[in-house]
């Protein structure tokens, strides 16, 4: 990178020793790559109607849910896998996967967290996600007032437990696994499931409709501000198993919720499939913040193994003045195919999308958003930061459309790409459709490399090259990192450093 000295830099006065140690400790490793040894029960390999029936039966679902799944499955069989993304991966054999895996110890549904298999609890503890109500997420100890975070933990195909359920119930908030919601709140689920991402939406979403096994359900009643952050933590553990989770969030009039999502998986040589669907319904004056730190196993340096992440996420701002904010930090996965979208239907509704996508080694990411302006005076903002290193390919793909009736609407899009090394690629594919003249749409994109002057400055202050790059990159991402809830911002910042490890020098 234009600097002659490759020597190991001595830690000098004025350099925070801790910073360097932290960076070194994290370097070179996907730190969530371990596996929990736990007895697992699988459904037979492959995908057919019987598997769909089995999943439905395991979850104790009513007939309408099974019918819905079977209709989706019939449709899926006639669909073709989309190939328009700038992604290169071999044909996926959908019959060579397990579609359902659950820890044996979950056979008898635990009544409370105290009954959950300690091995499972330990797994989440190791991930920094304590499933105990008195504890808080790592990284927030220092804050003045301890903040509570309710967690729904999904392990392979099942939810192992949800914390703070009682406290939330007092506020009228429903937070539980989707399988439980289908049993306990069928009216709500039936009303909203598939109303944002219809069964026929796309190949992966339709597959999800047929085989989703668990996920989270959130319902915030009218006028309620959810008393704590809600969070779902997805862990894939079993081998050759796909994870298909489904999340449904309903924010009634005047409510507010902030929702966090995290994901990890063990290191394995084979690719694993993850096809999730997230649906969010937002009514008048309600606001939902949805933040993701996606850290699935990215595969090794040569692209062996890693998660194939095909995700459909969509928020429907149905009510007037409703608001949604997507924030994502995408550092993991061998393949990322993900476009969290906002349907701005209600008048004066707002959609925001903040994204950092990091692709290193042989990773490929094709990600972005859709802002569909249907209502008057709607506003949207897109800030996307793509970073490519190694031999990775990183694509921003987005759609902004202003319908004829979306008068006086505004969109501002900024997508910046950063290239580290000359073997990677950074691409931008925005679609802009303006069908009325009172709306304003602005789109800006830039591509550049890590600035030599900035690097030199950091180096001259005693940082080593990798650390300097991490710092510059963190600066590049700052706008997005700031949009994350604090718990995630810390994790995300260190992830940025880890993901780029080995990309310079």
């Amino acid at each position: 990178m234009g600097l002659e000295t490759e020597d190991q830099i001595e830690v000098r006065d004025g350099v925070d020793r801790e910073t360097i140690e932290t960076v070194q400790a994290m370097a070179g490793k996907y730190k969530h790559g371990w596996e929990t040894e736990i007895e697992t029960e699988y459904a037979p390999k492959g995908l057919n109607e019987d598997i769909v029936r089995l999943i439905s039966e395991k979850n104790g679902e009513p007939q309408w849910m099974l019918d819905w799944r079977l209709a989706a499955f019939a449709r899926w069989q006639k669909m073709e896998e989309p190939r328009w993304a700038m992604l290169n991966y071999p044909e996926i054999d959908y019959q060579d996967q397990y579609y359902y895996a659950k820890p044996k110890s979950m056979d008898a549904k635990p009544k409370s967290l105290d009954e959950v298999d300690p091995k499972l609890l330990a797994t989440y503890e190791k991930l920094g996600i304590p499933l105990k109500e008195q504890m808080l997420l790592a990284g927030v100890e220092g804050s003045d007032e301890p903040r509570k975070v309710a967690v729904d933990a999904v392990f392979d195909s099942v939810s192992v437990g949800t914390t703070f359920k009682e406290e939330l119930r007092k506020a009228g908030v429903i937070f539980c696994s989707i399988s439980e919601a289908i049993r306990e709140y069928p009216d709500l689920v039936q009303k909203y499931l598939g109303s944002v991402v219809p069964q026929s939406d796309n190949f992966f979403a339709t597959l999800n409709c047929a085989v989703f096994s668990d996920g989270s359900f959130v319902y915030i009643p009218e006028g309620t501000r959810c008393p704590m952050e809600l969070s779902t933590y997805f862990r894939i553990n079993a081998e050759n198993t796909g994870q298909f989770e489904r999340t449904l969030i309903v924010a009634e009039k005047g409510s507010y919720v902030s929702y966090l999502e995290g994901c990890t998986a063990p290191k394995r040589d084979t690719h694993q499939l993850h096809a999730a669907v997230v649906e969010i319904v937002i009514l008048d004056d309600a606001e939902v913040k949805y933040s993701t730190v996606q850290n699935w196993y990215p595969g090794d340096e040569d692209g062996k193994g890693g998660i194939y992440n095909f995700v459909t996420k969509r928020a429907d701002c149905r009510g007037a003045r409703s608001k949604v904010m997507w924030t994502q930090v995408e550092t993991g996965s061998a393949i990322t195919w993900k476009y969290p979208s906002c349907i701005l239907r209600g008048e004066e509704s707002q959609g925001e999308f903040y994204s950092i996508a990091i692709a290193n080694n042989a990773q490929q990411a094709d990600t972005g958003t859709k802002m569909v302006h249907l209502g008057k005076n709607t506003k949207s903002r897109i800030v996307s930061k793509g970073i490519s290193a190694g031999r990775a390919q990183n694509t921003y793909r987005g759609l902004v459309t202003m319908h004829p009736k979306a008068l006086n609407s505004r969109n501002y899009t900024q997508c910046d790409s950063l290239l580290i090394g000359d073997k990677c690629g950074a691409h931008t594919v925005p679609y802009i459709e303006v069908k009325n003249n009172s709306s304003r749409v602005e789109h800006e994109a830039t591509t550049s490399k890590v600035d030599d002057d900035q690097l030199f400055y950091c180096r001259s202050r005693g940082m080593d090259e990798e650390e300097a790059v991490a710092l510059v990159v963190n600066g590049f991402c700052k706008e997005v990192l700031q949009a994350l809830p604090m718990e995630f911002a810390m994790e995300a910042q260190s992830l940025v450093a880890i993901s780029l490890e080995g990309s310079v020098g």
Partner: protein
Amino acid sequence: MAVAQAKLDAAVARLAGLDLPQGGWSGGARADAVARLQAMGLPAKRDEYWRYTDPTTLTAATPVAAAPFDASDEAQLFDAIDRVRLVFVDGVFDPAQSDDPVAAGVELLSQAADIHWAQGLYGTLEARGQNPVARPLAALNTAAATEGVLIRVTGQVAKPIHLVYLQESDTSDAILHHCVKLEEGAELTLLESGPGAARFNQVLEVEVADGARFHHIRIQGRDHDRRLATHIFARLGAESLFKSFTLTANGVMTRNEAVLELTGDDAMAHIAGAALGNGDYHHDDTVFITHAAERCESRQVFKNVLRNGAVGVFQGKILVKPGAQKTDGYQISQCLLLDEAAQFLAKPELEIYADDVKCSHGSTSGAIDDTALYYLRSRGVPLRQAQSLLVLAFLAEAIDEIEDEGIAGEIRLRLEAWLSRQDG
């Protein structure tokens, strides 16, 4: 990906309906083009690069009838410039209205000798330009073109060459294919004007050798009914210059594609367009610029002013190949929507495989700035004039891409005249 059988069948049927020229020096290239077209099929509305423009009327066996436009109420284009004028009526060369092409060093495709320098160029750049995005109408053109000019330049050409396209028949279906070869250090200005035919399919292949300079200024006139599909394929050598500007004022269907490849270090390619649309007008600029050498610069500047349901489309792409370090790529597409019914659809793309590059693109769309309008009105400028002024200012960045001040001045005057007409 499997090509839909319907598209392939359509290509076979379309070719069968044409009287394809055979043999001669271009025979091989034409046969290759037929094979290419049969393999890719005709464009269909579902194709990624036709999502915003319906190709049906451009691919149909017969053109939609279009009444010739009477432009006798305005001065001839480029009349003030000393130039070589070559006239094509409904796609057929008309010696009576033209200057002597031979004296100007221009050959006609229909009259070229059996052994010809253009053999290495005809259809070659078009074929290169089919990857990664298929351009079936260009392959169709190579296979079926009946006329065009072949220009080879070794020094500096004294006068600009002006190709004038006139339409007389309301069912004419013209296919023209031009080849321009600029040898090392040569320079040429090529002017084009007119509608040309009810349906007009044109390909321009330009080979710009090291250090050569090519200027291209094109005016697609006010005529309303015609349908137009043009392609420019250019390959640029080291330290060469390519500049192209197109002014389009109405027309029910216009698709202007440009495929530029910078293959020599330090080359420079600028392409600009200004379009005025009113009513059932559809205008599409599709640009693909490939940077395959170091320290090259490319600029795309496209401006649309639309009203009354007119549709503007911009699909621009910068591809930076591995090793094309120090690339400077810039792209801007902007649209002024003068009323509620107009639409602007854009897809500005970047695909970058080199790290030491500076690439950016911007795209904006919106109405005329009320504050600016208010300011002008408060200074006593009448509303229409104030609007025209702001529209001209908006288009200025594209017109500024024309190097020759005389020509740029003429274009500005012409625009003003057209704008005042549209205001009615």
